[in-house]
Every structure is written in C-alpha cells, then in structure tokens.
C-alpha cells in the first residue's frame, strides 16, 4: 500500500505543476514553494514528520495522470480540476478541494476588449489536455463565436506565446491567470476579463483503489481547513498541542484526545506536524497567493463557510 511505501521510502513523491508562481514553483535556490506545494509538505509532515521529506516531481498537463497511475508519484497536488470522468473513468480519486476556481480570460489591455463575448475571431492560447480546453470549445460554441486555438503544453510556454503576441487571449483557471499576470514585467498592461466560464474545483488526488492512502491525503487537507476554522495556527499550535484544550474538536484534531492518528495509521500528532509545516489553510493562502502577495487573490469562494465561502471541513470525530 502507498502509505507503507512512503514510510519505508522516507520521502513523499508529490506531483506538482511545472512552474506556476504562487502554486508551485522552485525559488532561486531551487526550493519548491507555493500553495499546492504546501499541501504536499503538509502530507509529508503528517506521514513522515518532516515537511522537507518531499520529492517534487514537476508534471505537465499531459503527464500528470499517467505519472500518478504508473506510481511515479504518490499524490498529485497540481491545480487539477475534479471532474466526473477523471474520477470515474480515469479511476483517480480526488481527496478534496483546496481551491474553488473557474476559467477566465486574459487579454492585453490595449486590445480594448472588455468582455469574452467580444473575442470573436481571436487567437487563444490554451493548454492541451485540460478541462479548460474543453470548456473553451463549449463556451465559444454556445455563444456562436469563433476562435483559433493555439495548443501549448505548459504555462511557461503559454506565457511566452501570449507575450510575443502569437495569441490574443490566454485562458486557463483564473487563479493561474492571476499568478501568470503577476509574473509579467508590466502586469497592469493586461486585464482579466470578468467572465468566469466554468467551475474548476482544484484539489489533490491519488490513485484509485488505495482508500487508506486517500484518507491520509483527504484528512490532511481537511485538517488544514479545520485548523483555520478552529483558530489553530502555526503560531499557537505548539501551545494548543501541549495539553488538551477546552475544545474537544481541537483536542481530537491535535491528537491530545482520541485516536484519530492511529486510525489513519499515523502518529497521534500527525495534524500538528501537518499544520506546523506551513500553517493552516489561511496561512498558506495568505503567504502564497493572498492579497498581500503579487498574485493578490481574494479569498472569495475560498473563504470558510462561516465567512460565506465554500470551505467546509467535515468534522473530526
């Protein structure tokens, strides 16, 4: 089983994007960082007790599923949309949603376009093998306008083509658009059109058929979300984990009460490790893609349900 393999190996193989600032990209020292990377690190910390024990495997849209199926990676945390066919037909198992997203369009400001409906005849850069590719076709078709696709393989390539003017529009998940735009020399010269044309629930996934491992990933993600909801942060976690607190759910989460860790086949302090790896969900968000970063994404749908968002961790009990 995957869990045993990971423990024996001592390293978690985590598939990430080939480079999308804020979500997964190596920094100048070659250390991977980002929001998706944070999930990998949390899982590694939960399972191995070491947030550094991750081998990041950069995967393109084309290689991601085969790499996962073939066992090259233990999990995929790579802005991947949860769809019916991926879940059912490709026999993958999505273990939750870490970012509620939708597909958007980015155009140069001087093109003078203000709505996606005005894009008739435009040349569109699109990553192949993605849901956005299919959505794009559907959207233009249903609005009865035409376009010319320029298929590309990685976000980096798309960025090059778009900046060189080989396509008028770049479309992908809105979050990725924001991240891409943030890395431009002059982000202000480009605008993201208001239309969001699809639902893109992004989340980590694992192979089908190994539910134990799926549970580990699923509940690690839930632990991060629940931690925010419960007010557990990397700053106060040591203190909270030191002794049982007044909140039994916090106690169960942090292993000071009950046997949740053992049920997953992990140490009792698995969630503590996971949360201290990079902080709770909010911390990860703010640090990597939040409003104070160049990417500047608002929480929006990704706020806790208590704040009117969609984040809603099942109870730890």
């Amino acid at each position, binding site marked *: 089983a995957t869990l045993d393999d990971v423990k024996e190996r001592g390293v978690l193989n985590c598939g990430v994007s080939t480079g999308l600032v804020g979500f997964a990209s190596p920094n100048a020292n070659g250390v991977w960082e980002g929001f998706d990377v944070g999930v990998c690190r949390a899982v590694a910390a939960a399972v191995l007790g070491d947030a550094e024990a991750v081998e990041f495997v950069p995967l393109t849209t084309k290689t991601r599923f085969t790499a996962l199926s073939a066992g090259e990676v233990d999990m995929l945390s790579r802005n991947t949309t949860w769809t019916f066919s991926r879940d059912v037909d490709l026999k993958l198992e999505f273990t939750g949603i870490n970012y509620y997203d939708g597909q958007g369009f980015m155009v140069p400001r001087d093109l003078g376009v203000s709505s996606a409906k005005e894009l008739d005849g435009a040349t569109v850069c699109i990553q*192949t093998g993605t849901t956005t590719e299919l959505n794009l076709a559907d959207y233009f078709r249903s609005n009865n306008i035409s376009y010319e*696709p320029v*298929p590309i393989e990685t976000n980096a390539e798309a960025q090059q083509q778009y900046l*060189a003017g*080989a396509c*008028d529009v770049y479309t992908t998940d809105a979050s990725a658009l924001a991240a891409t735009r943030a890395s431009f020399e002059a982000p202000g010269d480009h605008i993201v059109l208001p239309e969001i044309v699809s639902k893109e629930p992004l989340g980590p996934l694992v192979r089908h058929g190994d539910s134990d491992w799926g549970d580990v990933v699923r509940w690690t993600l839930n632990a991060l979300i629940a931690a925010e909801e419960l007010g557990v942060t990397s700053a106060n976690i040591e203190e909270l984990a030191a002794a049982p607190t007044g909140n039994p759910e916090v106690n169960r989460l942090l292993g000071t009460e009950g046997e949740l860790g053992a049920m997953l086949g992990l140490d009792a302090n698995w969630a503590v490790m996971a949360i201290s790896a990079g902080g709770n969900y909010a911390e990860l968000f703010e640090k990597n893609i939040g409003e104070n970063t160049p990417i500047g994404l608002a929480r929006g749908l990704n706020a806790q349900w208590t704040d009117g968002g969609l984040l809603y961790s099942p109870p730890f009990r």
Partner: protein
Amino acid sequence: MSSITDPPQGSFRLSMLINDTRYRSLTFQAIAALILALSIWYLGNNLIQNLRQAGLNISYNFLGNPAGYDINQTLVEYTSRSTHAQAALVGILNTLLIAFLACVMATIFGVAAGVLRLSNNWLVSKLMGVYVEIFRNIPVLIWIIIIFTIMTAVMPAPRAFRGDEPEATMLLNAFAFTNRGIYVPAPIWGPGSLVVVLTFLASIVGIFAYRRYATKTLYATGRLLPTFWPSIGLFFVPTILMHFIMGQPISLDHPVLGGFNFSGGLQLGAPLIALWFALSIYTGAFIAENVRAGIQAVSKGQSEAAGALGLRSGRIMSLVVLPQALRVIIPPLISQYLNITKNSSLAIAVGYADVTATLGGITLNQTGRAIECVLLLMLFYLTISLTISGVMNVYNNSVKLKER
C-alpha cells in the same frame, strides 16, 4: 539412368533432437516459440492484472464520443462536437500534408545543395558543405524549436500592422508575415473559373505532349524543336487568355486586417511553417549528401566519354549522368521521405495538429486511453512505413542494372 526423379522423403526419427541437423532447428524453434509464448503471456498477464487493479479496461468506444476540443488547422470539416475518430482523421491528414510538403521542399533544398556542393565555385561549394554539416549535426527538434521561435518571437504580431503608423506593413498589400503565420492571397473561384482551371490542366498536358512530340520529331527527322520557350508559353498563355475571355472569373482574396487577425486570404499557420521549414532544411542536408554521392558515383569517365562524343554539358547531365545517378539517389531518398514522415511526429513540440498531437496527444489526455491511442498511433505509422518500403522495393527491382 539419366531420368530425373523426385527427391525422396526423409524418414522421421524422434531421437536425437539436439544433435540431428534436421530436428535440431525444430528443437530450437520450439524453444524460441516457448520463450516467445511465455514472455507474451507474462507481459499480457501483467497488463491484465495492472488494468484490473487500476480498474481500467481496453476499449475503443471512446473513438465515437465527441472530442470536445477544437483544432486550429483542419483539412476536413471538424468542430469540437466531432468524434475522437474524426479528430484522429484530421491529424492523419495533417501528418500527410506536412509530410508531403516537407518531402517536396526537402528534395528541392537537397538537390540544390547537393548539386551546388559539387559546383566548381569554391565559395558556393564550401558554403553548401557548411550547410550540410551544420544541419546534419544538430538535432531536428532543436531546429524545429529554433525556427518556431523565429516565427513566434521575432515576427511581428498582427497587432503591429494596426494603427496609423504601423510597426509592420504588408508586402505588396497581399502578403503578411506575422508571428501567427503567413497570410497570402487566396483565389476566389468565380463562375466560369472551372473553364480556366481546365484550360490550365490541358496546357500542362499539352506541355508534356509537346515535349514528346519534340523528341519524336528528333528521332524521326533529326530536327530538334525548341522546348524551353514553348513550354513556358504553353504554361501561361492559354490560361491567361482564357481567364480574360471568360471575363476574369478568378480573383484574389487579399488578406486584410480585421478584428484580431488578418481575415481572408490563405493562412499558413506558424506551426505548419516552422515544422515544414525545419524538416525540409534538416532533411535537405541529408538528401544533399545522397545527391552528391549519387552524382559522384557516376564515374568521371562517363561524362568524358559523353563529352568526347560531342554532347553538350546540359545533355551530358540529362542523358548520361542523371539517369545513372538517380538509381543511386532514389533508394536513400525514399528512406529520407520515410524519415520525414516519422519526424513529422515532432509536430507536437510546436502545436501543429498532426496525428501524434491529436490522437496521441489531446485525445489521449482527455480520455486517458493511453494504450489504445498509442497502439492506434503505431499502427498508422507502421502502415505508412510498410507502404513506402514496399514502393521502394518495387523501384529497386525495376532499376537494377543488367549484368552478366
């Protein structure tokens, strides 16, 4: 006693399977068959187990489902509602298109470079030598990427043609070189244009007929009719005349800047051009070597002998050297064509929608039917290869020089 009888049947003994020459080969083949069967069984068994474990199955039903994605260059009707099978067909046609274009162009490059390399002009022959060495020794993938980069990063975007003082202008108001491709005027077939086209086809037939006639009169009367100018004349004059007689039915649709892109005219997309050019110029370097070797394989004595008979250098080429060189050149040339077809699968690196990109790329990714897609892909290339090598064998057998 000199009657010819049939050979006797050997009597069969079951002993000595290893040491008896007759049965030894059977033994080995039986072992080989066993090993083959075992490995097929082993691999097949692994496959089945793995598929079962992953909950997958092998099925080609997906081919009938809507593909869902759009393709930017299609030779046949295709929309995102078409099936995966149609997407594969689009890819196959695109592969054949690029292969055909690149074969033609590579032959032109290769023959030109090969002949020029033998030129007695020192500079030209050295230049061609450099061309051949540089292109042969750098991977074709790097060439494709370099040329694609030139196309997309160096050429102006259509946007640059806009405005009162555009950064880029169209050539002759008819050709636009942009980083999305090259736009050229496209013919509009007005009523009556069929007559013009037929006239054109007829004049091509006419050229051949005339040339045959010229050879015939040469043989019959010894009079050598001029062929060059009459051919040129036949090529242009009747068609142009007919064009005006019919009231200029064929007009040109010039590309004009409209909306985001040029519209009208004919667009040759950047990926197509990059791939076309890269494959041609890369393979051209190999063909140049074949051409050179072929011409050099015709010994100097042949052209001297022809010269001594009083033939002019042009005739020496066409009557003596080329017919012999072609026998040497054509077989490797055909394998180069095969290589072009196979290398066109690198289209995937520049986003040209060939069969590797549609069937082996997007379809594979969207459906996850890796095994099925890759098998179909291999089947396609295999068919092409076997067909071409079949043609080559027929050719080789037909041109074998008669020897003692």
